[in-house]
């Protein structure tokens, strides 16, 4: 446009040498198609984590024995050739011998699915009071039912419970890893930067913790949590218990990095230039391996999620009335029940999907974390 524009365009090579290291990481990460797609899956899941009530169609706690074991109503996207999502109606009949309600799909009656409908009241992001939900049906009087993933033995809507379980399980994974990173970087840093006695003590502690059989110890610790604790207290305690062992791997890695970096010229230069210790660590050393830590911790999240799910499934982790993926899968513990209502296994698919996404993103980040290789 202007006459001052550079005569020669910036070549690709120059672009690379001018780019910040974060930009380089992003460029490399972008090339992994699967990792990028998984990142979007995770974004979507965390969107659900932010406002689960908005995505729910029913109150996840509302129980009604009459509505137990309603099958999944498959969503159809076209109604008679015109676009418009609808689900088939469900009709319940009481079995005269067992006296149980038996529900079946009635394809002849269509219930249109509407967007932004009014439902049970909640607080958006915990602040804004509202009744607007993403999906729902027009008739709020209960005549038109919408159970996207069926109901469980107490007639609770599984879709809404899954959405709320997603919030707990995904948050636990993230917080437990955050705890691990904070402890790991702090202790690993002290261990690697100062060396000496502090190093020996911290290294022995890490060895001790790593030779504990994790699953049995976790079981024992969670079994020791008082029964009368509130869901928030239990949530916090589980997070701490999970990160108790999780930090050790990171601590070791950070220590190794510090040991290697301590001898580097740029650290010596910063020291001679009169930079404070804090500045040397935070400004010069940590950024060189930060992307690596992020990649390692992303790969640590799925293990945390699996552990939480397993503990809750055994009844020792998150406890009802709090909802997590493990709590949802408890409903599938009895095989006779699952044979009757196979949709109770759907939460397992969500667990696998999220763990898969975390693993793929973590792999992509790990490959991209070292932007100067090759």
């Amino acid at each position: 446009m202007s006459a001052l524009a550079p005569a020669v365009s910036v070549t690709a090579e120059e672009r690379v040498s001018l780019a910040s290291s974060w930009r380089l990481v992003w460029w490399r990460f972008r090339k992994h198609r699967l990792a990028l797609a998984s990142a979007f899956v995770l974004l979507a899941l965390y969107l659900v984590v932010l406002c689960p009530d908005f995505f729910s169609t029913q109150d996840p706690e509302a129980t009604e024995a009459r509505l137990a074991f309603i099958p999944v109503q498959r969503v159809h996207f076209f109604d008679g050739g015109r676009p418009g999502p609808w689900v088939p109606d469900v009709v319940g009949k009481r079995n005269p011998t067992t006296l149980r309600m038996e529900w079946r799909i009635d394809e002849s009656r269509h219930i249109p699915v509407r967007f932004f409908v009014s439902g049970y009241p909640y607080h958006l992001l915990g602040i804004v009071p509202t009744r607007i939900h993403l999906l729902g049906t027009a008739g709020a009087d209960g005549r038109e039912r919408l159970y996207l993933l069926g109901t469980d033995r107490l007639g609770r809507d599984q879709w809404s419970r899954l959405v709320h379980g997603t919030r707990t399980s995904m948050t636990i994974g993230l917080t437990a890893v955050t705890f691990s990173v904070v402890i790991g970087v702090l202790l690993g840093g002290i261990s690697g930067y100062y060396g000496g006695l502090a190093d020996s003590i911290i290294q022995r502690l890490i060895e001790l913790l790593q030779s504990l059989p994790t699953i049995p110890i976790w079981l024992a610790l969670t079994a020791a949590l008082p029964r009368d604790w509130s869901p928030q207290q239990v949530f916090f305690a589980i997070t701490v218990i999970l990160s108790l062992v999780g930090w050790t791997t990171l601590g070791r890695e950070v220590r190794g990095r510090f040991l290697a970096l301590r001898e580097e010229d740029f650290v010596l230069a910063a020291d001679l230039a009169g930079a404070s210790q804090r500045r040397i660590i935070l400004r010069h050393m940590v950024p060189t391996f930060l992307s690596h830590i992020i990649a390692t911790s992303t790969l640590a999240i799925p293990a945390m999620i699996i552990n939480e799910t397993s503990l809750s499934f055994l009844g020792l982790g998150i406890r009802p009335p709090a909802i997590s993926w493990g709590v949802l899968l408890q409903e599938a513990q009895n095989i006779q029940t699952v044979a009757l209502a196979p949709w109770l296994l759907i939460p397992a698919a969500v667990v696998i999907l999220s763990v898969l996404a975390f693993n793929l993103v973590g792999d992509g980040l790990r490959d991209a974390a070292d932007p100067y290789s090759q």
Partner: protein
Amino acid sequence: MTRYVLKRLMLLPALLFLFSVTVFAIVQAPPGDFLTTYVATLASSGSSISAEQVEALRREYGLDQPVWIQYLKWMENLARGNLGLSLEYQRPNAELIGERLVLTMVLALLSFVFTWVVAIPAGIYSAMHPRSPVDYVLTVLNYVGVATPNFMLALVLMWGAFAYFGVSVTGLFSPDFVEAPWSLARVADLLKHVWLPAVVLGIAGTARLTRVMRANLLDELNKPYVTTARAKGLSEWRLVVRYPARLALNPLVSTIGWYLPALFSGSLIVATVMNLPNIGPLLLRALINQDMYLAGSILLIYCFLTIVGTLISDILLAWLDPRIRFEGG
């Protein structure tokens, strides 16, 4: 080498002591003791027990004494090889744990064998045919295998077997053999049932091992000595198995000792889901009922297995990689 092993062996008692304190602290941690849980269970089933009787029982079990005396008594018994008495079952712990421990180990060993027998050939094949359809299929399976918690796999398999074939795949024995004494027929019956849990337990490990084997072998296949051997006209299969595969295996061998204890711990959850008469469900029940000597003994056994596993792993590593010996020795 011998010095290194001796040094590690000398650390063993110290570690076990530290773990015994930790374990005791953990099983002691829940508020109340076995008797409070017992009284609560009785109350919920409608019967009751007088306060004097509870006190008498408490004295009898030594639950009224300070914690450190209880710990010392436990240790004293352990030193004599006595694992103590289960408060709930009123039977010696050693008797309760014994057969279940054997079954736990059989299960872990079998799934370990499964893992290696499947993963190593799969990894070699993938590395020899990178980007082939089979490689892609294996890669997808590996990712899903790693991402599936084994108890979920157990649930899905049990449901599939029940819904489509009408069989229940829980347990390790047919009904006739559950209480039967050990015999050849019982072992045969065990083998008929044990493979499914062994596979379930081994899937995640198999997936991980295949990926590692593939990556290690791919690194080796790019090296000049492979090109040399190929130039000299060695057949592709012999070429790979002879040298690169062996080198790629080295780092994996050293993780054996670490992987076995992980299988012991991992079988705990699968055992609970599939109702296997293994040490896992016993621990779970003991923890919930605060049967603390039983829970403590089982936890200590897990710790012991883990330490021994790590030790084996370190010794193997030192044996394979001489650099470690000089550092540690």
